């Protein structure tokens, strides 16, 4: 079957056409239009600008990638969670198209999309997913930090999440404290490569909390204390702070992930979300998983950030489960759900 998916939940406007078969997922089209440059120019996200950019890019993206007479079997769109103004553009375009083309629309949860980015990068999951369930999924991004037990397609249990800041947000804010620019994650981890992580003894908040929740706000503040104490910092200090910070973050994430993997007797571990691009995190998880003899999956770099390809794959498995498919007059009531919590405790 062919699925056309749209994603516009935050800074990216993206479109994918997926050709899905029982044991293969082929992307016929896959385009991402990023607004990071624009946000850099403004020094942050401007909701009105973000929405206008989505509005300006979504129609050209559609007309460049699909002919008006061309048929797809399903349309799919991210309906949440995300920025309301950004979501609205994708949802409006998708439901209008679905109604006009008389094609069913699949409403997709953005977080579920991130989980399915692993299917895009690992053929083995497409062919033999059931071998790897239950799987433990660590989702880490600018807005989310969640540890999810995936018992099967569409069957999730939330084990824990951040009680304050998300991991990606902590990276961005530490970058800001060090005056390193935006987006902070890649810059901090690059600087960490040249640093010594043993110089600063930063805390590991909640590492022994006995549950699977996370806290990163205090770690950010600990970096602030460190900088206040030093007053003047040179390039080497910045590298060392970045290395110490990243080491603390990875320590916490890996520690909780492996504890949960043990407790729930999972058959595999997966990483997802924008922070899945972090090499130290990937390598540490890979190493720990190997010790426990657990398969470890992670998305390729191009699918770790926001994209429409992951949305199309999540839509495909929703279709197989007959979930979240909307057609006919019901399409008119499809609306963004900026707080959509898919994973339940």
């Amino acid at each position, binding site marked *: 079957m062919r699925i056309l998916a749209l994603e516009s939940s935050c800074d990216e406007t993206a479109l994918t056409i997926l050709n899905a078969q029982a044991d293969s997922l082929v992307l016929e089209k896959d385009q991402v239009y990023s607004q990071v440059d624009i946000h850099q120019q403004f*020094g942050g*996200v401007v909701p009105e600008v973000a929405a206008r950019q989505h509005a300006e890019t979504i129609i050209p993206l559609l007309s460049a990638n699909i002919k008006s007479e061309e048929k797809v079997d399903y349309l799919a769109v991210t309906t949440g969670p*995300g920025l309301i*103004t950004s979501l609205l553009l994708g949802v409006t375009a998708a439901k209008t198209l679905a109604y006009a083309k008389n094609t069913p629309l699949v409403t997709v949860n953005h977080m579920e999309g991130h989980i399915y980015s692993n299917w895009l990068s690992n053929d083995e999951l497409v062919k033999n997913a059931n071998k790897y369930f239950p799987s433990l999924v660590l989702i880490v991004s600018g*807005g989310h930090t969640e540890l999810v037990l995936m018992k099967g397609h569409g069957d999730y249990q939330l084990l824990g999440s951040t*009680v304050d*800041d*998300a991991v990606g947000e902590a990276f961005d804010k530490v970058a800001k404290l060090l005056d390193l620019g935006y987006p902070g994650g890649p810059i901090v981890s690059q600087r960490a490569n040249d640093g010594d992580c043993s110089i600063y003894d930063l805390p590991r908040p909640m590492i022994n909390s006995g549950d699977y929740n996370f806290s990163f706000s205090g770690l*950010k*503040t600990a970096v602030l204390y460190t900088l206040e104490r030093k007053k003047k910092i040179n390039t080497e200090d910045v590298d060392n702070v970045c290395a110490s910070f990243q080491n603390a973050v990875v320590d916490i994430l890996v520690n909780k992930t492996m504890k949960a993997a043990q407790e729930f007797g999972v058959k595999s571990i997966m990483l997802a979300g924008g922070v899945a691009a972090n090499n130290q995190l990937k390598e540490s998880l890979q190493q720990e998983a190997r010790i426990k003899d657990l398969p470890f999956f992670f998305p390729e770099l191009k699918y770790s950030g926001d994209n429409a390809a992951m949305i199309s794959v999540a839509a495909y498995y929703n279709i197989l489960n007959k979930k979240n498919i909307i057609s006919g007059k019901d399409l008119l009531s499809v609306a963004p759900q900026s707080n959509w919590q898919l994973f339940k405790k």
Partner: protein
Amino acid sequence: MQEFVTNNIKETNKVANDLATSLESGQLIALSGNLGAGKTVFVKALAVGLGISETITSPTFVLMKSYPVNYKQIKQLIHVDCYRLDASEDLADIGLQDFLDDPQTLVVIEWADKLDNLPKNNLINVKMEFLGQDKRKIVISSKLVG
């Protein structure tokens, strides 16, 4: 105007809790202070004071989060964060005006100092300052009508 110097998170939480007990719906709390000043910690304690059971998490990334409340006339808390916003931007774009006009909603805005068009009435300003380790200065001033 009230000024507090708190020596630990417990004392900071008490200031937020005390403020919560005096709140009315239709009010706007504007929080300001640098990174690490404790704005989100303050909102968390405020939420506890309002009897909110959900965990308040940082709205930095999504700009705005909402929580159901059942406290006096207050039916919902809208938690906004302007950190990622451009200084001059109008929050009307994320639909904030509707909440500001709603008598059953309490709006709390972090990094409110980035906005220059906040309503003047029913506004409570909370300024937080980092004084080292867990020590904070909190200044609360309000312009209330009625």
